[in-house]
């Protein structure tokens, strides 16, 4: 049981972290309109994961808390938006964008591996509740990874050949 608590806690932390990465990607790259909108859309999946992990954790006497507030107001967010607008006509943010996409991809990969571990543990301990949770959330994590991979693949040639 302790092991399951650890696995849930790590995933919960990882999904919260990914929400933060996705929202800062979205704000920092507002002038990359597709990145801006899709990052917000797929952050919603991680919000749902965090909530479902917290709900599941309650069954193991673990209090994990819900997803972070989804308003992107804060001072830091405003600064990121302003910086994005100012830098809209410059080429350097291309590199920054690739770096941020890479970080999101790695954060999603991190979560994906932990979903794998949770699913395996659930199977071994015949815990259907957790198995259902993992098999319904993990595919969305994989889609987050495929999205960042596709964007990196499509954008990097132009970014690097124009430097």
């Amino acid at each position, binding site marked *: 049981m302790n092991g399951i608590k650890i696995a849930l806690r790590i995933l919960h932390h990882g999904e919260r972290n990914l929400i933060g990465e996705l929202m800062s990607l979205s704000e920092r790259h507002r*002038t*990359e*309109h*597709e990145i801006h*909108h*899709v990052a*917000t*859309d*797929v952050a919603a999946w991680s919000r749902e994961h965090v909530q479902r992990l917290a709900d599941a954790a309650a069954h193991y006497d673990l209090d994990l808390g819900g997803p972070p507030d989804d308003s992107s107001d804060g001072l830091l967010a405003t600064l990121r938006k302003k910086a994005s607008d100012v830098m*809209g*006509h*410059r*080429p350097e*943010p*291309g590199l920054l964008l690739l770096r941020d996409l890479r970080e999101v991809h790695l954060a999603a990969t991190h979560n994906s591996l932990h979903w794998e571990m949770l699913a395996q543990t659930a199977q071994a301990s015949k815990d259907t509740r957790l198995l259902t949770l993992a098999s319904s959330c993990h595919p969305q994590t994989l*889609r*987050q990874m*495929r*999205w960042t*991979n*596709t964007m990196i*693949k*499509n954008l990097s*040639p*132009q*970014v690097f*050949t*124009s430097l």
Partner: protein
Amino acid sequence: MESSVDRIGDPWGSRVPHGRHEPWPARVDTYLTDGVRPDMVQEWVQAASILHSDGDAMDIAVIDGRMVGVRGREIDRVNRGRLGPKDLFGWQANASSDRLTRPLVREDGRLVETDWETAMHRVVSRSRELLSERGPGSIGFYTTGQLFLEEYYTLAVLARAGLGTNHLDGNTRLCTSTAAEALKETFGCDGQPGSYDDIDHADVIALFGHNLAETQPVQWMRILDRLEGTDPPRLLCVDPRPTQVARAATVHLAPRVGTNVALLNALLHETIRHGRIDRAYIQAHTVGFEELAARVEDCTPEWAADICDVPAARIAEAADLLGTADRLLSTVLQGVYQSHQATAAAVQVNNLHLIRGMLGKPGAGVLQMNGQPTAQNTRECGANGDLPGFRNWQNDAHVADLARVWNVEAATIPHYAPPTHAMQMFRYAEQGSIRMLWISGTNPAVSLPELARIRSVLSQKRLFTVVQDLFLTETAQLADVVLPAATWGEKTGTFTNADRTVHLTDKAVEPPGEARPDLDIFLDYAARMDFRDKDGGPLITWHDPESAFEAWKRCSAGRPCDYTGLTYAMLRGAGGIQWPVNEQAPEGTERLYTDGISWAHPDACQDYGKDLVTGAADSAVEYRSLNPDGKAMLKAAGFLPPHEATSREYPFQLTTGRTLYHFHTRTKTGRAPQLNAAAPDVWVEISASDAARLDLAEGDLVKVSTPRGALQGRLRVTDLRPGVIFVPFHYGYWDTPAGFGPDAATPGRAANETTITDWDPASKQPLFKTAAAALTLVERGDGKPSPAPTTTASAPAATHDVPAATTGGRTAHVSQTPGTAWGREGNHR
């Protein structure tokens, strides 16, 4: 039936009742300019319509080297002699006094006239500099859906194999990329499944976000004729506006903007719940049914009613209509393609047909429509963000095959990523990595979203812009080099309409001044750049339209859009022919997928598919495991709320669209007197209940604003869905003192001042129909009417009289004559 009709006041002309399963009787429409009688016409030159995607076949009347009118071609399968108002009157723009007749180059900040040698030298030397300093990725091409097949193909070869740039797309991105993407997602490959002839056989016709009466008025005439014939069809219309289609529909749903996926999922839910599905068809020809059924299991009409704000009972009625059809025809256009979750929604219409087995039979078909006349060719020739001939950029065998056709190394053709889409190209130009943008036959300074941003991109000093057009458009005014082009009627070529019908259109008159056909301009550039194949021979081996067509045939051989069985000689004098045309189908092909799904096999498909939410590309391995036998793919999608929600500050949903009388940014239709007079200026539509609440009335000058910008127009109160603002997108600034954009004296006039930069992640089509906006009064109308037509979706609400109905007067009278088979039918009025 009258012999002469005002076709501005009565855009669809007189009815000829058309019974189910009968051939559509002909009606020949002729318009000749004042004082010209048919016997005075010296020559009738074969052509087809260039002002919408219907492909109406017509002849151009010529006297002494001048166009004097047009006549519908009775023998043609598409229109059987009929023409729409834009076909009848639009040709007059060719002879406008403000046509570009000489090239222009920018000198000391001003555009000045020059000769072709100077202009082309500038283009070529800039290309060479950029190639050597920054590589091919610094050059981009943004073309159109209004040139000819031969021109797109030449452009695709010179860009992809000559320069080796991945940046070539068309404005078809704005009108038809979701159609292409939805077909690729479902059938593995582009290609219109259905045929216009399905209208003759269907018992239910469902139009999803498709204002057919205004976008393809001649096919609407076909439906109107069927509604007056024996065994008429029932219509389902999904549209927030009270279009003519909505008025004629058995069931009209006006959902909240941006909720198409929720509505379609509920329709699928009902279809499956009632067992109105063809299990044998699903088993034989599809994959993914279980996942689709699971996804829509909870999507009840009650669930959708909340999201779409449409009564659940009406959704159930619509589902009944679809579910009880014995031959169902569905058509889809911009209300889906330019709205939130575009591809996901368009794909659900394909799904509906697949689970009902309604495909490949007379009357049972899907028409994923196009907006522009030659958009189909932009797609198939590889000028729109795909490789030519529907080849798969991720499939090395397809790239190798293309390299063989072009006699270049495979590595010459960029295929490391999907061809760059237009919105991304403008982003690269904004960012400074694209330094030359060659824009042909389109006007992004009016037609792209968020115009202040587009003008700032195009005005950059570091961006060298070439604009090839007929007129000094808003975009041309921002260019470094302007190349005067010849247009329809002044050049020869072929093009293909939305139901795969290929027409030849011949040169009738000389272009004005030094204007040249787009093909000649591209060939001249290729020759000056001296593009070579891998053996050192010229890359481009053709020199005129017919030899370009022959070259394209070699590229299309063995592909879904196979043209190998067609020749100019076959098309000249005859009616249009539907591709594929080859040894197996020498007469052409009326419907695709009559005998199963033919182009979805992993080795044959054009695309391995995308995630409909994120746009992430699937790999060959994933595709092969999902669909090893090449069946149609039922792709499920969940509803997502639109990205821009209404708020207290921006309480309205804003949607933009078109009117019957204009095309694109009015470069031609604004210069045809009858069309211009019918809709002379921008207007703003709201519902009667919103007007009452805000104390606004017909003719009031109002301002529509969003976080991006604002425009002003006179108000028309209609039976539009409450909470929605509609603005036509055609109007720009060329006919205002401001020139190319708003200034201190000229307020915003273009709808795209206000639209959001957001696109469907799968098709990359911009979303012109999902934004939030505010509406404020600028000044009272005091009896001044709104310039909106009264004959169309912009007709005033029944309770809101307007001073005068739209009419065309004497100069809009068009003769209608019975076709040869006419007399036998009897009973016309």
